[in-house]
């Protein structure tokens, strides 16, 4: 549905060049909720603006629904844009007109009839739960309500694609969750393709089914959310995941443990089984849990444990072999014996 190929974009300022995007290749399928995560300055905002050509790339192709946006006249580009809603970190509503007129803007732009506009605005207000704010002005609304109005405005022209540029970054955690839930509902109800730019792992985790991780203008990895979450390949991917599940601070303090510390990652049906108890009983090993976390990603439950095993070496090995066979991942995050013996 959206395809970016070999996109490059460099910004020239007075004394330096900033490579905002380098060799970006991205495929977003219909119905995806696609997350792009990265720190500030990674090029995420430029990337999302490439999709509707608010920023023109220096090279590469932008294809939406089979149309190469770089080859069409402005008029046709505007038509395609009206088929893509966009919401922003700062909401970007017009403060001088009321909620009704803000939401009606895309409809008026394509010269819809008064009746059609009225019906659609009511429908949208109902969708975002702001029926009572129809004639309020944006300055009378809270941040979360403003973003709801912005979502209603973005969706009023029945777009097939919704672009979200840090849409929850200016909101508090509770409001963030309610907006994410709304986006999820809209996605499920309307079958709309959603692209989300964010620096919050929480956002990606809550609603995305696919994710790309960006650093310094490049996509360092992309794929299915569960794959990325359970098995990040890039160092920045690892950083995001371990920081998010909170294991990063624990991992730093592991040196106090005398034995080998393992990180057990698991997802899917395994999470419903009492695996550790089973290992303890079956293989006669004692398991000390140092850290544990279970998350729901999109529709999949993903867990992560830091543990040490106590018992006979062969029992421990057998327990780990069995555990690995369950569609899980085991890695050694700290090996005190090894590092001690090295020191000796």
């Amino acid at each position, binding site marked *: 549905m959206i395809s970016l190929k070999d996109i490059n974009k460099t910004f020239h300022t007075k004394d330096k060049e900033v490579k905002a995007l380098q060799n970006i290749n991205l495929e977003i399928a219909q119905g995806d909720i696609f997350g792009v995560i990265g720190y500030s300055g990674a090029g995420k905002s430029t990337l999302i603006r490439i999709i*509707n050509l*608010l920023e023109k790339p220096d090279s590469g192709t932008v294809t939406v629904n089979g149309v190469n946006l770089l080859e069409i006249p*402005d008029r046709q*580009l*505007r*038509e*395609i*844009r*009206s088929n*893509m*809603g*966009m919401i*922003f970190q*700062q909401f*970007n*509503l*017009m*403060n*001088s*007109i*009321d909620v009704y007129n803000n939401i009606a*803007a*895309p409809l*008026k*732009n394509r010269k819809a009839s008064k009746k059609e506009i009225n019906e659609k605005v009511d429908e949208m207000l109902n969708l975002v739960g702001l029926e009572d704010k129809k004639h309020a*002005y*944006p*300055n*009378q609304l809270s941040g979360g309500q403003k973003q709801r109005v*912005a979502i209603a*405005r973005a969706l009023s*022209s029945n777009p097939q694609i919704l*672009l979200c540029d840090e849409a929850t970054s200016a909101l508090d955690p509770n409001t963030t969750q309610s907006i994410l839930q709304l986006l999820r509902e809209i996605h499920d109800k309307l079958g709309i393709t959603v692209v989300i730019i964010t620096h919050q792992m929480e956002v990606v985790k809550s609603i995305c089914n696919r994710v790309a991780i960006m650093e310094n203008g490049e996509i360092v990895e992309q794929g299915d959310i569960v794959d990325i979450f359970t098995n990040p390949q890039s160092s920045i991917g690892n950083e995001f995941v371990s920081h998010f599940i909170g294991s990063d601070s624990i991992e730093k303090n592991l040196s106090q443990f005398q034995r080998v510390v393992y990180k057990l990652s698991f997802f899917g049906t395994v999470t419903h089984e009492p695996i550790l108890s089973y290992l303890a009983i079956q293989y006669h090993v004692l398991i000390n849990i140092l850290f544990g976390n279970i998350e729901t990603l999109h529709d999949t439950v993903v867990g992560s444990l830091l543990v040490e095993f106590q018992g006979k070496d062969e029992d421990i090995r057998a327990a780990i072999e069995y555990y690995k066979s369950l569609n899980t991942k085991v890695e050694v995050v700290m090996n005190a014996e090894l590092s001690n013996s090295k020191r000796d």
Partner: protein
Amino acid sequence: MLNYLIPNAIEYFPEMMKALGETLVMVSVSGLFSALIGVPIGVTLLVTSEGHILANKTFYSVLSKIINTLRSLPFVILIAAIPGFTRLIVGTTIGVKGAIVPLVVACVPFIARQIEIALVKVDMGVIEAYQSMGFSPMKIIFKVILVEGKKDMVLAITISLISLIGFSAITGTVGGGGLGDFAIRYGYQYFKTDIMVVTMIVIVIIVYLIQGIGDLIYRKLSH
């Protein structure tokens, strides 16, 4: 009592009313034309400036330099410099009619710059949002920039009208009439101090009225 305090002002009351009328005509007519010409130029300056929706470096810098040049000419010199142009437009260089042309020439660049400054406040993020909805540049100007910036434009025009009152007083020196001319002629040259004082008070009242109306409209437009 009033006869004792401001005898001359009362004696010359009809002349003063005539002068007041002339000032009001000069300010309102030249204000109207200046706004009609100045606002589009101000909008053009804004949208062609760097990073804006119709950014055009060369065009912007040429237009901007013309505006700056016109603004740097002292008004009294401007009046003396363009009699040919004035006669071409209104057929005379004296009286209220003759004053309006140089007033417009002086006020247009002033209003244009004020409008540009007022409209810069319209959030680029909002403009970007409307671009993302597929609005054309013209629609963005009329449906977003002018709507969102109208209360600040009201303030810009208010300031311009007030400076027009100052300009209009100077036109008295070239036979333009008006309160400035009245105050200089009777108050200064005939040493009738009470006329000077009363005229000043009248001008101050006009300025306060214009500013007050401007602020009122601004508040009405603020949500």
